[in-house]
């Protein structure tokens, strides 16, 4: 392998042919872990080489190719062509259930729109975190509605077309009403037998049961 007959390379006085220098720069840039400066190239190449010129022609050679010779500070490196960057990404999509806080906030917006943050908090009984609202905005399930003409002119939230599409609703008015919820067995007005026996730890319990239940109805 190393017995190629590139006479110029071994010569003490003659620098290698430019095509050969270009190969060298190509190999060095490829194999080196960091971008390489012209000086470093020169240090590594045979005496008399002109790495700057070799770089120019190498750069030209890679024009329009899948990788490019790019300048990084005062050094040079190979980089994937920008338009092919998407090939270097492997997208793993993970579907997660919306958190309970997000579901409840979303439900309140859907049932009460347009609704202000203060109103949402009043109904939920707890503060609505910025993250929850941001998440719903990002999902494009809610958007800002008109400002309320009350002191402070608070913004309101409404659901979006994307929300309606996702839930298969023609309009927010098609959301099942309380009566429907009751008929569906989702509302049960009798006092909780658990509460009656005096046990109080049911919040977590209820959450779990709720999750379990939704599993029951999915698909």
């Amino acid at each position, binding site marked *: 392998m190393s017995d190629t007959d590139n006479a110029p390379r071994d010569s003490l006085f003659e620098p290698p042919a430019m095509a050969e220098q270009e190969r060298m720069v190509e190999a060095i840039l490829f194999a080196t872990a960091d971008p390489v400066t012209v000086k470093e190239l020169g240090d590594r190449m045979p005496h008399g080489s002109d790495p700057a010129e070799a770089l120019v022609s190498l750069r030209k050679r890679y024009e329009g190719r899948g990788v490019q010779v790019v300048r990084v500070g005062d050094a040079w490196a190979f980089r994937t062509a920008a338009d092919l960057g998407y090939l270097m990404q492997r997208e793993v999509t*993970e579907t997660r259930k919306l958190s309970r806080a997000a579901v*409840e906030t979303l439900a309140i917006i859907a049932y009460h729109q347009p609704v202000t943050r203060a109103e949402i908090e009043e109904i939920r009984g707890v503060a609505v975190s910025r993250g929850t609202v941001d998440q719903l905005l990002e999902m494009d399930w809610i958007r800002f509605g008109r400002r309320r003409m009350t002191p402070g002119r608070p913004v309101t939230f409404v659901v979006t077309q994307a929300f309606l599409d996702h*839930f298969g609703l023609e309009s927010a008015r098609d959301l099942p009403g309380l009566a429907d919820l009751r008929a569906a067995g989702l509302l*049960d007005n009798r006092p909780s037998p658990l509460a009656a026996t005096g046990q109080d730890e049911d919040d977590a319990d209820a959450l779990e049961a709720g999750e379990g239940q939704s599993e029951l109805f999915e698909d």
Partner: protein
Amino acid sequence: MAEDLEPEPQEPISVADRMAAEALVVDVDGFEGPLDLLLNMARTQKVDLRQISVLALAQQYLAFVDKAKTLRIELAADYLVMAAWLAFLKSRLLLPPDPEEDGPSGEELAAHLAYQLERLQAMREAAAKLMARDQMGRDFFARGLPEEMERTRKVVYTATLLDLMQGYARLRTRDEFRPFVMDRDKVFTMEQALERMRGMIGFAGTWTDISSYLPVGWGEEEGMWRSATAATFAASLQLVKEGHLEIRQEDLFAPIQLRRTETRDE
């Protein structure tokens, strides 16, 4: 270097002899087992391993073992085993074949030993050729600056309409909210309904509303009523199938009515 230039001290044996002697005297650990030693000895015959004189080799090895013993070199068991085997082989090669005795001939055994030596030699040469190849990280190189494969984790959040409804229901009934669970004691099974109706259909000479077959106490509470109605209806269909019952519904959403099948013998 300097030592090389010094005149050889007067010795009764030649340099070659001395080197051969050293090769033998070398502690046995220097060889990787008897086969390695044999291969080394075979090389001194300076012939193709296929043409090697196994007899000469056996003699050489036995001489080595003898000498080693006199030099009190600890000989590993496998060297002695090999010596015993070679002594056996030697006798087979020297004596005329015994027609009474079956098993491989001395020549076959010798050929196999020669094969083993040749194979070991070939593998050593192959190993040398392999290591002489251009190697990655020494003669040729992989990409030094690999670009990280970006593993973008895209999380998609989702919710169903049911999640939404449950969420809302939870809020609206916060105080009296009770998680929905399948309580078995609120479920009227078809088996229960069948049993109940089998006892009752005898009295159904005329068309009767199905609701009158519902178990007592199951009509008030909605969930229980639904379960009892469903079970009773399913049980009715089963009884119709069995020929005990007739069923009819006058109109869409009209009450469902049941009647005992008139049997011929009655």
